[in-house]
């Protein structure tokens, strides 16, 4: 039972890191950023390539995270920025970008899965009868560090306050002279860094492939809606809840339906609390 919960927490951390990137972008720019999956894929391939080229894993991971940030900012600069006054176009543009990024990976690296080796993937951490692979421990640690850093940025810095202001009311933020474009770029930069961290952290447990992020993205969208659109802490809480629910469901009912448990949770929450766990008073970041 505890083993199942711990695995659920691992999944939950992954969902949370991906979902926070989505919810941040949604909060600031109201874009459902499907291309986030493509960013994860390219970041994973960048890490894999750098590693295959002989770089130590830590450096390769940094290359991957930087690549995630760069690709994410690129999607904002070349695409999303131009449709800011036309929100109805956002889902189509987001889907198109996702296909472009995935097919870029397919073209460059082929459709075969690649396995990513890390110095810690043979490590097994055990305590109190619970065992967790080094990869999962690393992901949980990275997720906690990344989300804590994000929390500090959003709550303690003027840039973070400005971002929360934009998420609450774009008009009021513009009225105060906050440069909106910089906020949009910053949101995509942070989302890209988080996507890169997620890619580096979970690629070793799966495989690096153009479609590696599809299911994670779906689950992360469930998390975003469950947590309340635009709410960072809602996304963290929702991620953990969804991870544990999927973990319990697949362990005790059927693993074939793992993702289905997530959508069951989504339907239940939307029926009981249509605004999401934290979305009742409107959009907000943090």
């Amino acid at each position, binding site marked *: 039972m505890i083993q199942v919960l711990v695995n659920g927490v691992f999944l939950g951390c992954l969902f949370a890191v991906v979902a926070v990137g989505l919810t941040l972008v949604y909060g600031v720019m109201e874009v459902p950023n499907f291309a986030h999956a493509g960013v994860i894929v390219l970041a994973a391939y960048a890490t894999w390539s750098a590693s295959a080229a002989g770089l130590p894993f830590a450096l390769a991971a940094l290359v991957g995270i930087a690549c995630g940030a760069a690709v994410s900012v690129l999607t904002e600069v070349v695409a999303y920025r131009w449709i800011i006054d036309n929100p109805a176009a956002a889902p189509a543009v987001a889907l198109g970008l996702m296909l472009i990024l995935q097919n870029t990976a397919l073209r460059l690296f082929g459709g075969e899965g690649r396995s990513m080796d890390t110095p810690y993937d043979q490590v097994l951490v055990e305590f109190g009868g619970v065992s967790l692979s080094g990869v999962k421990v690393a992901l949980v640690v990275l997720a906690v560090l990344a989300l804590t850093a994000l929390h500090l940025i959003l709550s303690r810095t003027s840039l973070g*306050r400005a971002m929360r202001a934009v998420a*609450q009311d774009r008009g*009021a933020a513009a*009225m105060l002279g906050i440069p909106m474009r910089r906020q949009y770029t910053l949101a995509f930069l942070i989302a890209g860094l988080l996507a890169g961290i997620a890619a580096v952290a979970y690629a070793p447990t799966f495989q690096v492939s153009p479609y590696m992020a599809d299911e994670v993205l779906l689950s992360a969208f469930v998390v975003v809606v469950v947590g309340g659109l635009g709410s960072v802490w809602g996304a963290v809480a929702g991620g953990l809840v969804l991870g544990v629910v999927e973990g319990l469901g697949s362990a005790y009912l059927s693993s074939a339906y793992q993702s289905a448990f997530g959508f069951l949770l989504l339907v239940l929450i939307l029926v009981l609390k249509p605004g999401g766990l934290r979305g009742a008073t409107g959009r907000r970041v943090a």
Partner: protein
Amino acid sequence: MSALLTVDRVVKRFGGVAAVDGVSFTLDAGSVLGLIGPNGSGKTTLLGVLAGTHEPTSGTVTLDGKVASGKGAHRAVHAGIARTFQTTRLFGSWTLREGLRLAHGERRGRQAWSDDRLADLLGLDGLLDQPCASLTSAAQRLAMIALALATGPRVLLLDEPAVGMDTAEAAALADAVRRAADELDVAVVVVDHNMQFLMPLADTVLVMAAGAVLAEGTPEQIRADEAVIASYLGEA
């Protein structure tokens, strides 16, 4: 002494339509200009040009001798031109003090008025630490003006600030705007349809019709102007 704000032959076209068609006026620090006219006469578009949201098709807006138009909304705020909107825009889950703190960050070294001073000026004493969403709608409109003033503007643009207010609330608003102009030496442009609110408040009134200036003068002159009565005041 030259004027603080100079609007010189500003034209703004959308496609073939000139929403603002050659408007000129000047405004001194500490004075209040009332901007009136029928719906669609170009008042809000003109405000958008002054606030940097719209780039003028031709003509310029200068603040203290420096061209301020056509550079984007946030640059206008940084240059010292702040605005409010017809609909209330606030940070609902924040307190007013949190919003003011953010606004202070955009002053770029200009005059700082303390939170307490702004609250006193706008009659929001005691409301600084309440979430903005919990304020009455009239208080929210005053809070929006407080946010705009916290950016330390030289020119304040108010787009229908009295909309939805009852007579007493509108009178309190007029008093607050007058005090902002007198005590903070801010030049104010007010667009509103509520003549009971606007006429006693304004030093000068500019009447727009079809994008152009129909008349300009003191409130008394405007009240007596037959062209204005025919095109606008007479319909009320």
